[in-house]
C-alpha cells in the first residue's frame, strides 16, 4: 500500500536516510516514467533500463532538488535527458531519431495485421498504437500534457524549450496523432471519435 505523504515529505524522509520513503516515491511515479521511457525506447527492456537509470539518477541528486518546481517536473526532465542520451547512443544503429520512416515501417506492418482484428481492439488500443507511431518528441509532449498533469510551462521546463515552442509542438503533435489514428482506424474512426 502506498503512503499518502506528499512527494516533498517523502523526499525529506529519503534524505534523512529512509529508503522505504524513496520506494514509495518510485512506486508513485514508476508508471508514468516507464511510459515516457517507452515513448523513446519502443521496447520494454530498453524502457525499463532508461526508467531505472532515471530513478537512480534522481536518487543521487535528490539533495540538489531545489523544490521550486513540482518533483514530477524535475523527475520528467531527468527522464527526457536520459532518454535523449539513449536515443543518441542508439542512433548508431538507426538512421535518425527524426526519421519518421523508421516508424512508418512498423506502422504499415501493424495496419495490415489490424484490419483483420479491428473488431477485437478497444479504443485505447488504437490510441496507444497511434502514439507509438509518433516521433518521440511528439509522443512525449502528448503524454506529458494529457497524463503527466503538466502545464505548458512545466513541459517547456522538462524539455528545455520555450513555452511558445511547446504550444506549437503540441498543436502539431495532436494533428499528427489525429492523422495516425484516422489512418489506423480507416473508416471506423468517425464512429469512434
Amino acid at each position, binding site marked *: 500500500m502506498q503512503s499518502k505523504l506528499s512527494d516533498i515529505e517523502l523526499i525529506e524522509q529519503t534524505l534523512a536516510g529512509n529508503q522505504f520513503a524513496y520506494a514509495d516515491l518510485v512506486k508513485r511515479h514508476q508508471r*508514468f516514467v516507464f511510459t515516457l521511457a517507452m515513448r523513446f525506447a519502443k521496447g520494454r527492456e530498453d524502457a525499463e533500463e532508461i526508467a531505472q537509470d532515471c530513478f537512480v539518477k534522481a536518487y543521487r541528486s535528490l539533495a540538489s532538488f531545489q523544490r521550486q518546481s513540482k518533483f514530477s517536473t524535475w523527475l520528467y526532465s531527468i527522464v527526457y535527458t536520459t532518454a535523449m542520451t539513449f536515443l543518441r547512443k542508439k542512433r548508431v544503429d538507426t538512421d535518425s531519431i527524426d526519421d519518421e520512416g523508421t516508424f512508418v515501417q512498423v506502422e504499415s506492418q501493424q495496419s495490415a495485421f489490424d484490419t483483420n482484428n479491428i473488431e477485437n481492439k478497444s*479504443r485505447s488500443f488504437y490510441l496507444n498504437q497511434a502514439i507509438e507511431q509518433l516521433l518521440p518528441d511528439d509522443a512525449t509532449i502528448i503524454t506529458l500534457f494529457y497524463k503527466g498533469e503538466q502545464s*505548458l510551462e512545466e513541459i517547456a521546463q522538462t524539455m528545455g524549450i520555450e513555452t511558445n515552442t511547446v504550444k506549437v509542438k503540441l498543436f502539431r503533435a495532436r494533428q499528427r496523432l489525429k492523422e495516425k489514428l484516422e489512418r489506423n482506424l480507416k473508416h471506423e474512426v468517425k464512429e469512434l471519435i
Partner: protein
Amino acid sequence: MNTIEEKLWNYIDGTCTPAEQEDIARLIEQDEAYAAKYAELTALNAEFATMELDEPPMAFSYNVLEAIRYEKMLAPLKATINKKIILGIAAFFVLSIVALLAVVCSSVQVSGNSLIEISIKLPDNLKVLATTSMFNKTFMQGFFVFDVILALFLTDSYLRRKKAAKQA
C-alpha cells in the same frame, strides 16, 4: 495567422487571452464551421485523455532500490581501496626520499677552505651493484619481450574497454 483549428485548440486548452476567448465563443455559437470543428476537437481531446499508461514489470521498484544499494555499497569500497593504495605509494616515496637524504647528509664533508667544496662519500658498507654483469644480453632481450607483451596486453584491454563503453 492562426488557423481555425489552432484557435480552437487554444480555446479548449484555455491558453488564449480573455478577449480571444470571447471572440471564439461567439464564433462557435454563430458559425457552423466553427461549431462542427469545435465538436470534433473536444471529442478528440477527450479521446486523447483516455490514453493508458504502460505498466512496468512487477519487480521494477525493487530493482531500482537494489541498483541504489549496489551503488552505495560500491562507493565506500572504492574509496577505501584508493585511499590505501595512494597512502602506500606516498609512504614508500616519502621513506625513500628521507632515507636517501639521511644517507647523503651523513656522508657530506665540508672542508675548511671553501664552503663550496662539498664531497659526498657513500658509506663503505653500501655496495653498488655491478650493473655490467647484471644487464647482459639475455636479460635485455627478456626485458624487451616482457615489455612488448605488457604493451600488447594493456593496449588490448584498453581497446576492449573502449569498445564496451561504445556499445553500452
